[in-house]
């Protein structure tokens, strides 16, 4: 963990001065949807976020899951909602795409994260989400087509079963 952090900080600080050059090889971060507030822009000052975003997220995750504290400031879901908002073409990058907000940097610095093995990598309740939901629903229906008749039949027969 510590090692990863060190590598990440080194990588970020080493390349930060370069970011002024638009034509550099540096990843281009997608713009956030809106500012958290006018002073800090992001939920913490930007330079703090660059360095310590993982600590905020880590702390929040235990608070949320284990205690049920659901403040939004440091919530991963809010990060995704704001930073991975759908573009004009309504397309939303997935964590495997290099355009994904997290992937842009993490691919660049070769720091692997496994957040999206479990967490949604896209915002919910955007227009695109509608499509996904129906997709998921289809997938579910697909599963249901395979499974439900059996159960339904099983459940529908009031008589003694075959067993």
């Amino acid at each position, binding site marked *: *963990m510590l090692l990863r952090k060190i590598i990440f900080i080194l990588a970020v600080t080493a390349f930060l001065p370069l970011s002024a050059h638009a034509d550099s090889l540096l990843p281009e971060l997608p713009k956030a949807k809106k500012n958290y507030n006018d002073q800090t822009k992001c939920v913490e000052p930007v330079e703090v976020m660059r360095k310590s975003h993982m600590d905020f997220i*880590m702390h929040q995750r*235990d608070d949320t899951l284990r205690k049920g504290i659901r403040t939004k400031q440091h919530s991963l879901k809010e990060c995704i909602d704001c930073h991975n908002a759908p573009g004009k073409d309504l397309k939303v990058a997935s964590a495997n795409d290099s355009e994904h907000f997290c992937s842009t940097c993490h691919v660049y610095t070769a720091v692997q994260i*496994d957040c999206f093995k479990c967490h949604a990598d896209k915002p919910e309740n955007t227009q695109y989400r509608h499509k996904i939901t129906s997709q998921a629903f289809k997938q579910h229906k697909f599963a249901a087509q395979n*499974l439900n008749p*059996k*159960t339904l039949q*099983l459940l529908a027969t009031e008589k003694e*079963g075959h*067993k």
Partner: protein
Amino acid sequence: MKTIRFTELEGRSPGFFALMAILIAIIGAGIVSALMMHGQGHHITGMTNRIVWGTPHVFAVFLIVAASGALNIASIASVFGRTVYKPLSPLSMVLSVTILVGGLAVLILDLGNPEHLLDVPLTQFLYNSMPSRWTRSVFGWNFILYTGFIFVVGIYLWFSLVPQYKKFSKAASIFAFVWRLALTTGTGLIFGFLVAREAYDAAILAPMFVVYSFAYGLAIFSLVLIPTYIWTGRELGDVIVNRLKSLLGIFVAASLYFVIVLNLTNFYSAAKGEGIQSFLLFGDNSYSSAFWIGQILIGSILPLAIAFYPKLKARGALLTAAAMVVVGGLSQMYVTIIGGQAYPMDMFPGKTVESITNDGGIAAYSPTIYEVLLGLAGIGITIFLVVFAMNVLRILPESLADKDVDPHHSA
């Protein structure tokens, strides 16, 4: 009694390299299987939400139980003062550690998220280390017992190999003996404390696993010792082999005793007797065959007969009996672990239960090649490590001929 000289193996013959190459191939196949399970998900195995522990666990638990048993030779020599076993002590210690490493490797490689072992936040690790927590999780104890075992036996080995520390080795041996008893008890209680499952939930499982460990460990020990001495051309007399053979017989008999007690107890209860007990022992399934043919016939009766039938050639008899005990042990774990899960839990007494997850029915299980390869890799790791250790450490006596091990022997 002559001083026993311990030397390393030479380790330069083509046969040696061939053996190591085969072992590396076996280990590699297991690791590839594990990577595939990890990449594609456990659906490529035969394990399901009903049979949550499968073939890898059969191998892993067998090896972990055997590990503590392999230490027995050293314990008998120093804790119980049977000096004839003294020359075998270092091998016994090293083997016990390598078997444990092999077993744990299988267990860890089978995890759904082994990388989380490194990622579990420190706060949670500390929380778990608090007595209030880990006294509840048998796995929690076992984390400490398993890692501690390697450490404790390591010190024991160090004390007994380095002359100036020899005076501490008796104390170390007693400590290691107590530790190994705790370890096997803990392993037995992984199952013993599963209150929800009829197949387990019995305190007898703890001493039972301890007795199994004696037999399994000695069997693996014999299977390592005899081929090593034959292939390296070192002398191995019948005195030691016959002793090991009788010892194996006694351990197998003791295991059989526990099996009989547990099964009779289970038959006495009407619920278990007509349910899971009949299923495991007399059902039309692989578990009853594994029990009668694997565990009882091959694993108990035949080795007993071989061990106590005097007219057989000592080495061949011990090798055969030991191999049978290993087969029997794996069968036993198969019946206990997989058979115990296959039978439905009795959630609704007096009712038949039907559901999409087949709650009231027997769970199907057919292992896939990935699981088997992963399990075999555990054995591969064990043998690879012990052969490697024999090459770098002086743990093998140059001769175990009768005149060297038995002071009263007259040739």
